[in-house]
């Protein structure tokens, strides 16, 4: 703030500038999380909740093996989906940025990637069911071509179906940020690397991947948080055979055990925060974005 601004106001100005965002964050993020934390210490009798301070909900959540199984299961999904979406997202973006030279084609193909997203998540998920089912299209195709004589059960209502759906739903969240950071790479850098005698592989690992890591990190944050917070895909695509942390929470909420669900939610928030901060430690997104 320069000398032109009237005295006194200058010290307040930065605070006023952050105030709108701070207020929105407080109202939309701070208060809800605070409420969940508060609720996790309250008591419930299966119909109402009562203000209290009890560790019982955390004791219930932490003392059973289910919680560990749930977290392990959810983390397993997140890990598989993360690897798959990074591979697919990176490949697609690489193709779009470095192989498609024409800007019009680039934009056109990029829009093509988004076409499935013109319908709702639920539709895209449910449409897998008739395709993968026991009497579904894919199994019929396999049987008619003589590859199998019995329908494959593993295609639907299984972990396979869950992971497949996640990848289908969330890959775009990986493509967009990677595409964005790749598009910012100065072509001269690649020319220079080539002039200096680098192979295509060396260019990829030495230039492109390091310069796209902001995008990979951003995409990873999207994918990890989306998978960790899901219950609907798990429920529908596993046919209720698998559970995630949030689906267990949903079961508890359905039975009106809100405080227990809140305790589980607090645990989940902690785990996700740890994961996101781990990603942020590896890549300093703020510095990279300002670049």
């Amino acid at each position, binding site marked *: 703030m320069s000398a032109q601004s009237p005295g006194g106001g200058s010290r307040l100005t930065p605070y006023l500038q952050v105030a709108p965002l701070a207020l929105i964050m407080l109202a939309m993020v701070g208060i809800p999380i605070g409420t969940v934390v508060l609720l996790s210490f309250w008591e419930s009798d*299966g*119909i109402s909740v009562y203000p209290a301070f009890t560790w019982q909900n955390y004791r219930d959540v932490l003392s059973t093996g289910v919680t560990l199984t749930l977290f392990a299961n959810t983390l397993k999904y997140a890990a598989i989906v993360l690897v798959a979406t990074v591979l697919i997202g990176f490949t697609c973006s690489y193709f779009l940025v470095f192989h498609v030279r024409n800007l019009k084609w680039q934009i056109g193909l990029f829009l093509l990637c988004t076409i499935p997203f013109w319908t709702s998540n639920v539709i895209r998920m449910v449409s897998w069911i008739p395709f993968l089912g026991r009497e579904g299209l894919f199994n019929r195709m396999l049987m008619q071509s003589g590859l199998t004589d019995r329908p494959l059960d593993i295609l639907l209502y299984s972990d396979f179906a869950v992971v497949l759906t996640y990848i289908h739903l969330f890959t775009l969240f990986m493509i967009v940020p990677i595409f964005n950071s790749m598009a910012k790479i100065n072509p001269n850098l690649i020319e220079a690397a080539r002039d200096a005698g680098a192979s295509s592989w060396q260019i990829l690992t030495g230039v492109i991947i390091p310069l796209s890591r902001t995008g990979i990190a951003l995409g990873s944050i999207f994918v990890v948080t989306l998978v960790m917070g899901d219950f609907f895909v798990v429920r529908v695509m596993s046919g209720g055979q698998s559970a995630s942390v949030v689906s267990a929470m949903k079961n508890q909420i359905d039975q009106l055990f809100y405080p227990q669900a809140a305790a589980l939610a607090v645990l989940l928030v902690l785990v996700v925060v740890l994961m996101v901060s781990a990603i942020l430690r590896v890549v300093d997104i703020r510095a990279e974005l300002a670049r």
Partner: protein
Amino acid sequence: MTHGKDRGSAGLTRRGFLKTSAATAGVAAGSGVLGAPMIWAQTIKDITLNQVGPSYSVIADIAEKASADLGFTIVPQTADSTSLMTKVVSQPETIDIADLEFWAMQKVWRSGKLQPVEIARIANWSKMTPLMKDGKNFDGSDLSRQGTMPLEVMYTGGPGDTSFAAGATDYATTMPTIYNADTVGIRSDLIGRPVESWAELFNPEFKGKTALVNIPQIGIMDAAMALEAMGEITYADKGNMTRDEIDHTITRLIELKRDGQFRAFWSTFDESVNLMAAGEVVIQSMWSPAVTAVKSRGIECVYQGLKEGYRGWGLGMGLMGHLEGMKLDAAYDYLNWYLSGWQGAFIARQGYYSSVPETAKANLTLNEVGYWYEGKPATEDILDPYGAVMDKAGAVRDGGSFEQRMGNVACWNTVMDEERYMVQRWNEFISA
């Protein structure tokens, strides 16, 4: 479930409401005569009643017909039983009439958010089936008390009483409306042999082709019916298991799941329909209208009555505590309209029974009465409530007559004392 009964501060204001409503009740006595509301016609149009309940009970067509007959507006709103319970407790002012399952009453009544139904104001109460009114079977014997038998939550001492009365009083907690006997649905074409016992649900022959409902309280009871039928355990009360019984049941379920017995655990009506229609599953827990939906696609699906008996359920209409004056009178008019037959006939065509069978039957054709209530072969095509052909002439209803089906209820939908533990173990089963 073990914590205090009467905490919370809503009691005082509720009592205030109840006093005023009791006073107006006296003034309006007699207004319950069918179809002849004594409310002043000018203002009657301004009254709207929000009726909230599960989709199989709160039906737009019924609300529309009632609004046309009664002159005020019924606004139907569907909510599954669990979210309805939360609403009743935490946002009671958003509801006027709540369609509550009897097991839900076990949880909700003690919150004091509902007011009792004055039996004197329900004209057809005396014609009500003994199953609901007296807790007696058709032959006068006692009904099974496993689970929440309707009588256990039917009566209360009077306004302000948040406990249940053991026998009949002048005040009902809710006015019973619909009920049915649930069993398993089977694909008779794919099984190709008679199915007679709940044990078939866990028969290795159907490995990978069975499903259970993923509603813990109901799923565990279907499992219990099967385990008991297999002769490996006898429960003292399937509707209120001890921790040991819950442990045994869940351990066995986990074993079965690991062996690949189950194809899926469904949570919604359409999931159960699709599992059955797509041939993913040949035997599973199911609701009656879901079987109807599969059948109407031209697929052979039977709601198979089994020798160990049915799992019964039912629900009633509860009056919210804040209703008073003209609104309360209108609500009583609506309750009386409900038992006058049109609604009973409507839901009969969906496979449910009315709490006053007499008036429902009077609104059905002879053919329909024979098919739905008496277990006789249909003399002509049977139509569903919306006019689609449901069953052909000559067909007989699965499980037989009203008396054969409702008279053979082995346990009732319920909530257990050990519910919290049970839900936790059920989560373990689902994630195993």
